[in-house]
């Protein structure tokens, strides 16, 4: 079985998992309080004559298909979800699909930046500690990273706010842009970047702790291997041994952890977004729950499910790329 077929098989399987989870979500959707038809119609009950309202109600009910069997309802619902018809947001008085654009961009921007910062710092740091195993430098980093990954992100957030926004006020506490800001595109981007500083620092600190430790462990395992000895015996420079021979092999376990971490990062950013009032998907999810705007809540949930499954697919692809020995039989 070739790699292509293996990937195809994984993809089909993940689509199957998606449908299983979507059934779970459908039940959550059914658990939500309130009559979906009335939510859809909003205030029109007050403005319309009772019989006209009743007719509209019946029409909408027919359209939403609430009178049909659960199985039929499920297929209507999943069909709507897959075609981008996420429902009507009572909070924004608009279709959900129209309001999620900006928050999604904000969240992706925030998480991508945090991701880049984490990998840029933690991979070299992990390699360096692995090469200098058991030195004072290694031990210090070990202690710092265990603190980094043990501390909950919101505590780091409070600390960072205290240090960088209260004591030394160099970063803004919340929001995505200075109020009343105007300027050219580059100035605007810089302003946003400035607002992103604190959330990104907080997300990075939590991430760097874990990833550094994983890179270090994986590197130490690999550096003990015979082929590393061979490479050294050949007279290769230590840099080549470490970065080319060892690191490529160490990447395999790191990829697993890193993909899981990235998926978790998006989930964890809910907390960060709520602390820093960052107008992203996480904040939208929480606001939606508090405002009982369930169409938004469910769309957010769908986003996280798709993200998590996409993480699985990426992990599979990454495996086939970094690990030539990937087990093709299953």
């Amino acid at each position, binding site marked *: 079985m070739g790699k292509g077929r293996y990937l195809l098989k994984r993809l089909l399987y993940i689509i199957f*998992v998606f449908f*299983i*989870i979507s059934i*779970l979500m459908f039940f*959550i959707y059914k*658990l*939500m*309080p309130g009559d979906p038809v009335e939510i859809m119609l909003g205030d029109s009950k007050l403005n319309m004559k009772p019989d006209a309202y009743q007719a509209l109600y019946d029409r909408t009910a027919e359209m939403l298909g609430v009178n049909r069997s659960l199985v039929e309802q499920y297929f209507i619902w999943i069909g709507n979800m897959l075609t981008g018809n996420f429902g009507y947001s009572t909070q924004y008085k608009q279709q959900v699909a129209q309001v999620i654009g900006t928050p999604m961009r904000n969240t992706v921007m925030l998480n991508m930046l945090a991701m880049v910062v984490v990998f840029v710092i933690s991979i070299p740091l992990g390699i360096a500690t692995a090469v200098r*195993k058991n030195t004072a430098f290694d031990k210090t980093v070990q202690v710092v990273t*265990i*603190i980094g*990954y*043990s*501390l*909950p*992100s*919101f*505590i780091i957030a*409070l*600390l960072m*706010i*205290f240090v960088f*926004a*209260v004591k030394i006020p160099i970063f803004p*506490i919340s929001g995505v842009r200075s109020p009343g800001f105007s300027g050219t595109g580059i100035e605007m981007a810089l302003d946003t970047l400035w607002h992103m500083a604190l959330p990104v620092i907080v997300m990075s600190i939590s991430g760097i702790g874990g990833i550094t430790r994983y890179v*270090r*462990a994986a590197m*130490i*395992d690999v550096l*003990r291997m015979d082929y590393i000895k061979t490479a050294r015996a050949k007279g290769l420079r230590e840099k080549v041994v470490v970065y080319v021979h060892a690191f490529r092999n160490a990447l395999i376990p790191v990829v697993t952890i890193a993909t899981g971490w990235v*998926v*978790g990062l*998006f*989930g*964890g950013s*809910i*907390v960060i977004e*709520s*602390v820093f009032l960052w107008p992203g998907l996480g904040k939208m*999810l*929480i606001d939606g*729950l508090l405002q009982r705007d*369930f169409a938004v*809540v469910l769309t*957010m*949930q769908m986003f*996280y*499910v798709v*993200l*998590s*499954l996409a993480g*699985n697919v990426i992990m599979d692809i990454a495996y086939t790329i970094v690990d030539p020995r990937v087990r093709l039989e299953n």
Partner: protein
Amino acid sequence: MAKKKLFAGRKSTAAAAAQRMVMGGLPQEEEELMQSPLRMVVTSFVQDKVAMIGMILFVAIFLCCVILPFFFPIDLYYQDVTQSNVAPGFGMLKVPDGLQDNAAMLSAGSTFSVGIDKDGNVYEWGTFPTDKLRRIPSSSEMGKVTQISAGLDHVVAVNEDGQVFTWGNDRMGLASIPLELRSGADIKQISAGYQFSLALTEDGTLYNWGSDYLMNVSFPEGVQGNIAKFDDNTSVVMALTEDGRVVPLTSKTSSFTAVPEEIQGNAIDVALSDESAAALTSDGVVHVWGNTQKGTGQIPEEIQGHVTAITGGRYHFTAILDDGTVASWGDDTFGQTSAPSFDSAVTNASVGYYSSYAITEDGHVEGWGLKGYLMGTDAFGRDLFRRLLVGGRMTMTVGAIAVIISTIIGVTVGGISGYKGGKIDNLLMRLTEIVASVPFLPFCIILSGILGNRITEMQRIILIMFILGLLSWPGIARLVRGSVLAEREQEFVTAAKSLGVKEFGIIFRHILPNIITVIIVNATLDFATCMLTESSLSFIGFGVNEPNATWGNMLNGAQNGQVIENYWWRWVFPAIALGACTISINCVGDGLRDAIDQKSKER
């Protein structure tokens, strides 16, 4: 040899298996140097300094949270705005040296106290709710102060010329002293209350100024001009007239207005706590009416007939007896009713909020009641230290039960899957994968947000435990499956099979003890994760809710820059507790993993 005897009759019960598990397969011969794997693990763990420090730290935090709440009981529904955002410290009863043995009058405010000595100098001590309180008018301005009173966040004083001064909070009209009192009047009694001030002149007229939001003073016919004494609390003023009648100065009917008829015309002193009123009749008997829930109605029998004066705090009363001693009754949360004994007779007692002071004949001052808060208070005036203790207990309970649930599911699924193999394995592993791909935190938030609204708080906490437990078992299931796969090819399994042991028995009685260490390590690390998740959920308001405390929801109120800057104690202490706890659990988990897997130690 004794050992041999002890284990001569090895039982083949589960209990014996468990014993063997813990003690390890003891060497049959004394000279054998073989160490059991478990003992090796323990030795190596004990030598790991970081892990041991973590272990000690965690056990200490755990014991604190389990044992200390019995010594520091907490009423979760208790709130008191007068005590909100009090900084940590124990200086509330520390009477300044200059005042000690020379005191003329003392008054206890919300979290601070004021006093004047016999020379008319003003002293202030305690925790100040506002820095404006420190701006005491200079002695050249005030002259010799004769009377003083402390309120929620302001002070009222009178000098020997009868001039009234006030400092501290100056909003809501507190600074606008009535004109009649500014130039000097014959003032008999003053009081700084809850955002308002009162002054009574010798001719029996009561003046009041300040906020009328909570309280509206209204005088029934013939009372104004005839008042001998008064007392006030946050909602009512009670006056004692010259002819011994007790009159509530309010137009609203409340439990305070139900003055017992038999004392009318016979009362000589009146006092108010926050929820009840007390009056003293000329025969030395105390009568209490109003809401007496916190024990303010439980007047000690032996003092009846011997009382000469009474005063009231927030939830307690203090009486001076005819033999010069003091008796207190009511709520004792902060030791308000634990009056000390005095060397000489008490002449004057001053009670306010949760503190009491008594001045003896020789001018000696003794205070009792609320000394301060170890870790300060939150926005609702709740003691952070006590909430931290019960919060820790709650956080750990939720984490522990969630881990127990996830471990049971994980071990069962992993055990069956690994042992049976084939189709069942495939099916169970697919299930594991599905659960593992559910986005964890969003799912917890959404479930708790949607289901959590229609159930009681207790059910909600149980729901959180189950959500955490039901979503976090895939990791442990995979681990157990892997270990079972390795173990099931071992000879002892074949032996057990040939002896006709049932499959269930083989998995759980024979294989499980061999992989128990792996399970313990994983459960330890999962415990930290579950605590973190619960805290995150509570922090953003979708976990355990108020009034129940957890470390996460204690930090919830500290989300804005103002709180972070001004009320550091509200977030520093819960953050330290939670951080120390998770760091120590992770250290223990890492140490355990290193101890079990010697290979990982070389890393």
